[in-house]
């Protein structure tokens, strides 16, 4: 039942859209995947922008989150204060999940669509007929060209030398994406965990890419590249002297009830700004301690 709904509402439209794009883009399924990824990113841009702003708002509240953690030992009270802080600060901890939750079914559908649209056997082409709409424009496009930049998009990343190039590209774009994403926590321990994650993730995704069709890796690379672009537009990239293009909404005023004092940690300064103004990963306070 769920499989049928997934096929009807997501998979079939996606397969047909890919076939359509492929036919429009000179019969290249690789270009169709790239165009599809860009279309999805453009369509979900408002959601992505909201997520980036939400991340910023969450980040700005982190010093106060830490204060609450220190101040209240009772988990229930701590939770209540935390929720109050988020509510008054205009941040929603779950809002960051929106784009990911949207990406997940699209990713699964794309994974399935690539396997269906590029059949590896006569039986698979026969089955493709049950996914393709009855428009002759689409029927004329079949079967699709499975090669792109000299690699079979159906093959796994670990199957060929060029496939390994895509595996490396997955790792590289994942790493760059993590470097351009702001860190929400100011807790040193959490930050260290996240830094470790930033190193681990590219390896882990490269491992996955070796056993996934190259077409999926292509989607991943383009999607990550788009995300890197959004991150730079929103947060800037000081290392290259790039300033943010989309200015973040200012978070709501600090809820004083949750604060123990009015020191500099309560100012809504982003971790990115902290990192770049005071040295990588160090706060002003840490810098002061290091001075003679």
């Amino acid at each position, binding site marked *: 039942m769920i499989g049928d709904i997934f*096929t009807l509402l997501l998979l079939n439209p996606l397969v047909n859209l890919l076939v359509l794009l492929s036919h429009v883009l000179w019969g290249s399924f690789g270009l169709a995947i790239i165009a599809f990824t860009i279309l999805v990113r453009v369509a979900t841009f408002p959601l992505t922008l909201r997520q980036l702003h939400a991340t910023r708002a969450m980040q700005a509240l982190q010093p106060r989150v830490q204060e609450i953690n220190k101040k209240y030992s009772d988990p229930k009270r701590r939770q209540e204060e935390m929720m109050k802080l988020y509510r008054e600060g205009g941040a929603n901890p779950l809002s*960051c999940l929106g784009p*990911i939750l949207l990406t997940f079914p699209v990713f699964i559908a794309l994974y399935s669509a690539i396997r269906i649209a590029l059949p590896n056997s006569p039986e*698979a082409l026969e089955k493709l*007929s049950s996914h393709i709409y009855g428009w*002759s424009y689409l*029927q004329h496009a079949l079967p699709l060209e499975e090669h792109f930049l000299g690699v079979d998009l159906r093959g796994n990343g670990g199957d060929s030398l060029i496939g390994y190039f895509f595996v490396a590209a997955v790792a590289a774009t994942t790493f760059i994406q993590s470097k351009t994403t702001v860190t929400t926590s100011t807790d040193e321990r959490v930050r260290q965990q996240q830094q470790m994650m930033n190193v681990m*993730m590219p390896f882990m995704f490269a491992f996955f890419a070796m056993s996934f069709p190259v077409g999926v890796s292509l989607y991943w690379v383009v999607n990550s590249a788009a995300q890197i672009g959004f991150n730079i537009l929103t947060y800037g990239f000081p290392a290259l002297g790039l300033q943010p293009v989309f200015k973040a909404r200012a978070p709501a005023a600090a809820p004083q009830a949750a604060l123990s004092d009015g020191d500099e940690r309560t100012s809504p300064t982003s971790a990115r700004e902290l990192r770049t103004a005071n040295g990588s990963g160090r706060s002003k306070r840490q810098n002061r301690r290091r001075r003679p």
Partner: protein
Amino acid sequence: MNFRRGAIITLALLLLPLVSSCVSVLNPTGWAPVAFDGETAYVITSKGKLSAITVTGDSGAARWTFPDKDRDEDDKLDTKAIYGAPVIEGDRIYLATFEAGVFALRKEDGRPIWPTAGSDAASIDGDIAGGVAVAGENVYFATTEGLLYALRKDDGAPATGWEKPLRLGDGIWATPVVHGDAIYVATMSGELHALSAIDGSQRWSRPFKASGAIAELALISDELLFVPSINRHAYVVRMADGSVVADFRADDWLWTTPGVQGSKLFFGDFGGSVYGLDITSSGVEQLWEPASLKGERVRSGAAVVNGVIVVVDRKPVVTFIDANDGSILNTVPIEGAGTVRANLVVKDGAAYFSTTGGKLFRAEPASRRVVEVQLSGVKK
């Protein structure tokens, strides 16, 4: 990338194969039709394996199976699937396999005459999604990479004038058709070529161009070819010059061979409609409204015996249709035998077909019933 986001994506990736398994993708299984030589039926009894079966009434005893898992030399031979009918000539059987190349087998015991040691598939570019065509001294076959090969029947070496394969298109899935000294090859880019079987030179001024991929090709008379296209068109093409005698549009994909009775053709489409056409001097005339098989795909080629059309859909259900008016005479569902994609073959007033479960059935138009030929001694 923060911790939460990374953890979710990792979980998603781990779950991906599980979730996407809801959408199955089919691996090669094969759909070679049964081939008869006297009382011996050559049947695909399991994925990628051919068995010689001596058929007596409703039972059949296997004489040999190729590849034979009990033989060391066959141990590493993985044919994956067999799509084209084996061609029987003299004391030999010529067989194309999806991934392991082409074999000449001894009819007596099913052992390869060539290639002598395992497979020469490494020298073939692409897989073979059709079968072989045998003419003169050569065996012809084509690959999914769009290459046409000709090998010497004697020893499997490239035939004279065919030292290099001929590139014809993006992919060739249909079995080439040989007629006289010409060979006809259809491509997935929608072209039909007429070539000299001797040197591969083009016979027509330009290839016939269909509006969609051509995955099947069938000879329907000494002058005409049936050219179905997956974009719903069925063409009847004159072999002499490549001109179109008829262009019929069906309701769904066409990837089948027709049952032929004089100038009449009967075939099914992927939407489960069965058509009856009469080829006339001015094109084709539809004999009756299409008979409906309730939407089930028909890949298997139909057979016509004594005015009764026998069609099997993928469910599988065997349907007997009156060739005169298109009325359904009887339907016989088959349980637990896999699906049917192989073409039907007529022998002694009955239509034989095999299933993906490796079973052999006989449809009897006279009584409108279907009988399973019980096979014994088959090596899986």
